[in-house]
């Protein structure tokens, strides 16, 4: 055992730590914390940008034939998308007319707060990012965070006055109620998989799920509106001995290269 003076030093340290924790929860050191965060945030932000640039991956082709076939596949996709876009425009028009006929009111979208990603969390091993907006901008926990035009990337986990932590959808602790845009509109839960993939669980076995089907938020979860795009089905696992089937999803947004996001003020 350490000598008495050594033990005393442990006790002093525990006492100071206890005082620090009490001061934090009593919000007595909040100005100091805000000041320290404001000093460190530009540094974190710069390092985050460097990190994104370093992680930039280029597509590598083994030979000329592979490059040409990839190029042709891209052209085919673009052509197919042009046709889909035209069909979607027609459907939108038709939908609006039908809504007017049924005197549906257009649902007002939730206001959005745009925020910059300033870095990753420094302590946990989970997939979380820090954004430069907090409770002063109206952010509260569990609000959805989107990228680009409504791609769900995560939920607000913790809010401080001028900073917030977002748990990304590929985090192991993330669970989001979702629906597959197939004929049956199959429900399930999208969970993160080790920070590298998305897995949709609890899909009923009789659902006809196809590769490429889009998965969106179901709207059944509090604060998360229906229809936010989560990903597309990449692999389907339908084992005969399991009560549910699973699907591995490709995220639409590259979660490692996010720079600007929007938090939907749904609460």
């Amino acid at each position: 055992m350490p000598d008495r003076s050594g033990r005393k030093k442990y006790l002093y340290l525990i006492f100071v730590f206890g005082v620090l924790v009490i001061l934090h929860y009593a919000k007595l050191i909040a100005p100091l914390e805000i000041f320290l965060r404001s000093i460190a945030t530009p540094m974190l932000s710069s390092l985050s940008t460097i990190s994104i640039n370093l992680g930039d991956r280029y597509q590598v082709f083994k030979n000329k034939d592979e490059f040409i076939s990839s190029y042709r596949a891209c052209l085919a996709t673009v052509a197919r998308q042009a046709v889909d876009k035209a069909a979607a425009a027609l459907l939108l028009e038709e939908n609006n007319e039908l809504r007017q006929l049924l005197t549906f009111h257009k649902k007002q979208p939730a206001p959005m707060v745009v925020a910059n990603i300033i870095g990753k969390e420094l302590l946990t091993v989970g997939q979380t990012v820090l954004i430069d907006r907090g409770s002063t901008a109206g952010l509260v926990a569990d609000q959805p965070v989107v990228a680009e035009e409504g791609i769900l990337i995560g939920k607000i986990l913790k809010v401080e006055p001028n900073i917030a932590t977002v748990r990304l959808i590929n985090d192991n602790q993330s669970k989001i109620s979702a629906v597959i845009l197939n004929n049956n509109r199959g429900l399930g839960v999208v969970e993160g998989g080790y920070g590298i993939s998305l897995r949709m669980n609890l899909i009923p076995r009789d659902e006809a799920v196809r590769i490429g089907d889009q998965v969106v938020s179901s709207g059944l979860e509090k604060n998360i509106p229906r229809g936010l795009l989560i990903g597309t089905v990449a692999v389907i696992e339908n084992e005969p001995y399991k009560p549910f089937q699973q699907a591995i999803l490709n995220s639409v947004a590259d979660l490692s290269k996010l720079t600007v996001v929007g938090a939907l003020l749904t609460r």
Partner: protein
Amino acid sequence: MRFALKTLLLTGGGFLIFLIHILFIYLSPYPINRLNFLFIILLWLVIYKNNPFVLWAALPLSFSAELFSSLPFGLSTAALLFSLFMEHWLLLNIFTNHSWYIVLLCGFTALISYRILFLTFISGAALFKMTDYSLQWNFFSDLLVEGLINAGALTSLYLFSRLFSRRFNPRYIGL
């Protein structure tokens, strides 16, 4: 004057350690980004100096990291402090031979105890609805990777520092 210089040096050193910790997390690929530089440096100080005073350095360093964390405040620092206390006790009473394999074992046990304490505290916090953490199976595989990476880094740092301390220590210089 001397006190001011010492304070400045300690603050600068702390800032540098914090910066390197961030650099490892942000810029290095997996599994190197699992290297907990703050923890490694503190553990190295405990092994090298063998003085409980160095444990005080854990407080400002861990506090800085807690400012950018989604975990309930104090959880990580508490786990860090208790694992360092335990390691200090082990070094004084059991791992008294400071050879490289003991340092490797120290690094591994310290990291494992840190993570287990962390898991205990966060589970306690989840009981009181302070966080929504739930244990996943990959926690254990991550723990193993983290333990190996950090123990390896600590041993390398220890051997490197010992090389210099022996070379420049007057006790080892023949007259």
